């Protein structure tokens, strides 16, 4: 078994127009900048992007928005300082937006990866973000029914990988990366370093069974 890929272009080659993409990262941590750049070169458009943020300045997801590749964003917090490309596309009515509370976003992604058909969360009960959704009250507490969120491809950023696809992360770069790995049909990770020997089984954060490809991209941004 060898999941190592020769380059970033190979890693994104299978992404089709209209694909549902998960992209790891929170703020500057754990964003697969290399894979996103490769995706821009690759040219896929009409993408649905599932990510916590919608990019800032001219980097990462903001580049995809600037180049008009994104049809829909599903995220918790599109409005970061400097998220000018998101704001322009949104104001122009050029992209669809689904805002999901951050914990519900993570849990919907986990549900997809874990084969859960839906779950009841107290988050957003009684608010605008629960409008139109099924609710119920259990022991006096209100809950909203939320459904799993699947993707065709997940683009991830990790620290180290071995050829079985096992991943470790650095600092606060885990964020959405491990859970997104589990919810996509094809999860690919750019990593700071490919290890020639298996990673320590006690230290693996994302087991390789969730990862279909790994590619070295040495830069830690």
């Amino acid at each position: 078994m060898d999941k190592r890929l020769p380059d970033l272009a190979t890693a994104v080659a299978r992404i089709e127009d209209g694909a549902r993409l998960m992209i790891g990262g929170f703020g500057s941590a754990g964003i697969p900048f290399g894979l996103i750049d490769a995706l821009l070169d690759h040219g896929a458009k009409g993408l649905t992007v599932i990510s916590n943020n919608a990019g800032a300045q001219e980097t990462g997801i903001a580049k995809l928005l600037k180049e008009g590749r994104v049809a829909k964003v599903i995220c918790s917090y599109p409005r970061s300082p400097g998220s000018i490309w998101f704001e322009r596309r949104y104001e122009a009515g050029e992209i669809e937006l689904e805002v999901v509370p951050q914990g519900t976003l993570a849990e919907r992604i986990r549900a997809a990866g874990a084969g859960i058909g839906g779950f009841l969360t107290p988050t957003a009960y009684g608010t605008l973000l629960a409008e139109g959704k099924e609710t119920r009250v259990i022991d006096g507490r209100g809950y909203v029914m939320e459904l799993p969120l699947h993707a065709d491809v997940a683009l991830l950023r990790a620290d180290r990988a071995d050829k079985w696809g096992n991943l470790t992360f650095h600092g606060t770069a885990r964020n959405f990366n491990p859970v997104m790995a589990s919810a996509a049909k094809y999860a690919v990770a750019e990593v700071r370093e490919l290890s020639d020997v298996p990673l320590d089984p006690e230290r693996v954060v994302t087991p390789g069974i969730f990862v279909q490809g790994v590619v070295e991209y040495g830069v830690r941004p």
Partner: protein
Amino acid sequence: MNSLTDAQLAARVARDIPDGSYVNLGIGKPTHVSSYVPEGREIIYHSENGIIGVGPTPPEGEEDFEMIDASKRYITTAPGAAFFEHADSFAMMRGGHIDIAVLGAYQVAENGDIANWATLDEKFPPAVGGAMDLVVGVPTIFVMMRHTNRDGTPKLLRKCTYPLTGLAIVSRVYTDLAVLDLAPEGFRLVELTPGNTLEEVQALTDAKIHS
């Protein structure tokens, strides 16, 4: 009217956080609370993006792009820290494991409702982040904000007019003018910023302040 500075307000909030607490600080003003922990207390800070045990800002030149907090500021680790992923981080928040959250707000209502994620301005795309998860999961919610808007209109209301973040969940509000508990009857005065009178503060408050 005597008004606390942001630093004084942060120090006032910090005084009410007991030793050994697990605390989440919201983005904006609440992040400053960690600079004012009283001597002899160990407070453990959680950040939604996957760390418990947030330490101080790193010295210049030692910043790491992959070591940040929820406000996207550079951080270090405190002793006893741990990293984890997002589903686990929000399990901590939603599951009631964090003791206290300190949040900013646009509005707080006398029934404990809080509005802190969206205004009625349609120009801005909505952005909620982790606010709704925090308010349902953390048993003690402290709100820290200016007593009024810049134009002098009140933020402590009989009923919120902005979209709600959470329903009936605020425990205590710290403003530059006063500290108020959310009691069954509504806002109850805990203390006034020295020099202020209840009448003065009431005049800047939409809801009734019980004393």
